[in-house]
């Protein structure tokens, strides 16, 4: 396949992505996202669509704008042009915490956890948006607040158990390795009960075997928890195996998008990654 694999027609693409009907609203989408930092055009005209229960990957060389794009989608950056939609609703002007309330949960490239808390406390605070008792009720120790605290604790343990991290519950983060911290971070994001899980380099610090296990866990999480997942990762073989659909960013622009098999054999993508003359990825 020698042409750039850009599919412009929504219908054609959705047909390719599993025969969805054209009128289905994507869970998460962007239209024409661009952002400029001073003289640097970090992103330009990025369109993306993520359908329910899909695992969508973003790959690209360092500095391609993957994390910047994540920050635009989750609300940490305000794009200069373009819009972000969650279930068809425009959220471009919402703050990150408001987007989190709409079901976006994200991880960070540098571990996104509260350093001074234990693992369990991290999972307690990450449930923040689902807590029903008021701050005042919590301060006065009202019975219903204590009751809900107990439920939250139980839920935190459930999430830890689900990810086989239960034994770490009372650990302070200082004692954990980088790979473990990334796993705990995923647990904390899961405890926010997101619909859309956005992971920024979740494999950093993991060995090949653990990456394998993590990939299977992602698939299981999608199936059992009904998650839609967006991943940034450098590990191309992993991405081509796990993802349903892959976007390739290069110099802030979409270089290609398509099913993993098409991306694997895309000459432009291979050249962007491996240099001139490379024919296939991985």
């Amino acid at each position, binding site marked *: 396949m020698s042409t750039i694999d850009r599919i412009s027609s929504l219908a054609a693409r959705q047909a390719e992505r599993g025969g969805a009907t054209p009128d289905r609203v994507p869970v998460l989408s962007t239209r024409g996202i661009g952002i400029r930092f001073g003289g640097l055009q970090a992103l330009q005209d990025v369109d993306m669509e993520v359908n329910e229960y899909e695992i969508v990957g973003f790959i690209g060389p360092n500095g391609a704008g993957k994390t910047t794009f994540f920050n635009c989608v*989750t609300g*940490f950056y305000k794009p200069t042009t373009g819009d972000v939609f969650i279930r068809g609703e425009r959220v471009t002007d919402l*703050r*990150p*915490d408001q987007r*989190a*309330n709409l079901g976006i*949960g994200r991880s*960070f490239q540098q571990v*996104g*956890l*509260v*350093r*001074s*808390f234990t693992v*369990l406390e991290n999972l*307690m*605070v990450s449930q*923040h*948006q689902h*807590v029903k*008792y008021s*701050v005042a009720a*919590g*301060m*006065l*120790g009202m019975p219903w607040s204590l009751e809900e*605290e107990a439920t939250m604790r*139980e839920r935190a*343990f*459930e*999430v830890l*158990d*689900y*990810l*086989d*991290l*239960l*034994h*770490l*519950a*009372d*650990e302070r983060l200082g*004692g954990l*390795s*980088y*790979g*473990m911290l*990334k*796993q705990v971070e995923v647990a904390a*994001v*899961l405890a*926010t*009960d997101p619909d859309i899980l956005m992971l920024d380099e979740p494999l950093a*610090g*993991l*060995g090949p075997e*653990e990456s394998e296990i993590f990939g299977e*866990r992602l698939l299981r999480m999608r199936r*059992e928890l009904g998650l839609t997942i967006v991943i940034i990762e450098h590990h191309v073989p992993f991405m081509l195996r796990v993802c349903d659909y892959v976007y390739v960013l290069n110099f802030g622009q979409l270089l290609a998008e398509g099913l993993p098999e098409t991306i694997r054999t895309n000459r432009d993508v291979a050249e962007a990654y491996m240099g001139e003359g490379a024919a296939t990825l991985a």
Partner: protein
Amino acid sequence: MATTTAPAPSELGTDDPRNPWTPSPAGRIARLAVFGLLMAAAIAAPLIVPDVQVNLVTRAFVFGIIALSMNILIGYTGTVSLGHQAFVGVGAFTAAYILTNVGLPWLAAVAVAMLVGALQALLIGVLALRVQGFFFAIVTLAYGLFTKEVVFNITALTGGGAGAQAPRPAFVEPAADYAGSITGDVRYAWLALAFLAAIWVLDWRFTSSRGGRAVQALRDDSRVAASWGINVRAFTLLAFGLSGAVAGIAGALFASTQVFVSPESFTLTVALTYVLMTTVGGVGSRPGVVLGGFVFAGLAPILTALHDTPGWGVAEEGGEGALDVCATAPPRVVAGVFGLVLLGVGIEAVRHLALGERRTHVQRVLGGLIFLGAAWLGAVVGLGGAFGALGGYCIFTSITPLIEPVIGVVLLLVTLIQFPGGIAEQLEAPLRWLSFGKFHEEKSTSVGGGSAAGSSSMRP
């Protein structure tokens, strides 16, 4: 989420974190007994000290409340406030104004002071959303100075330099026909203690519920907190509002302690003392900062007392003339040098006791306590003596007001070098024990290495 039902605690192994360790019944009783004794000591303190010193105990309780207010900002939000004396002062003058000019009951005045304190803190909080770190500290510094020099000198509101009256509540004054031994001072000290206890409990619940957790998450990383759905703006302002409310209450109590309040009680030195007592106490630790507050509340009066003692400070008795004062200087120089040497030797000796590798935990805690106590006393006596001696040379009398900050700085350095966690770090084990934990914290063996299937281990 996973839909497994939580197993009953009896089914869980002893290592399972879902089944936390709890003390035995005897252990519980022991902890409650110690806790009761501490409470009893606090209640008995105003009765034990000489009548003239009761207000000093009250001052200590009020400083404890101020330390809790500081702790909300420094400890929970991680922002350093160098203008906290203005927070307290606003509360003090508000209460005084309400009491003398509006004539509301005392408790209502405290409530108004709390609200006004919270409001002015919210204004500063709005700034904190835009200005951070070092620059925010400068902003609070400017706010503190501005408030002291300008706002507190508006005669119509605060009485200006003449100060304002802040009568105590009627219910702490013993009835006229009651000839009991419990004085109004003691009753007022208990009132301050009651406020301290109530605010302590509220603060404890705050940190163990959603509000406090969210604020602390913001401190560590506001981006992460936002990604978990925490409204950064709202919870930053919440912390400032709470800190201001507590400072307002402390201000009202402070004003009524001396039944009088003047702008001179809220100088920059006071703000620094607040920062020092929070840091020396142990930022983020409730017991730590309150103990730090107690220590620093006692510092100034003890220094003044030393200063007025012949042989230590500027001689008052028998020497109206400068010559007499100078004549007694040499012994004071000797005393001062002796005090400093004692301080040095004491620190070195106790450092070995406290930090020796093979010491048991109890020995280390005891050593650390003795160390801090010795450092404090040594600083007071040694530096007080030295400066008193200098004062004796007639020229340097003006230096004596600097003693308190100097001692504060010495304590701060000692703390930061030896025990970065302050008093709280030294008391970690007993405090953990008292809060129904174990005295010895076990080092977990589960960290490092993929012990459980599917968990990750460190990359080589």
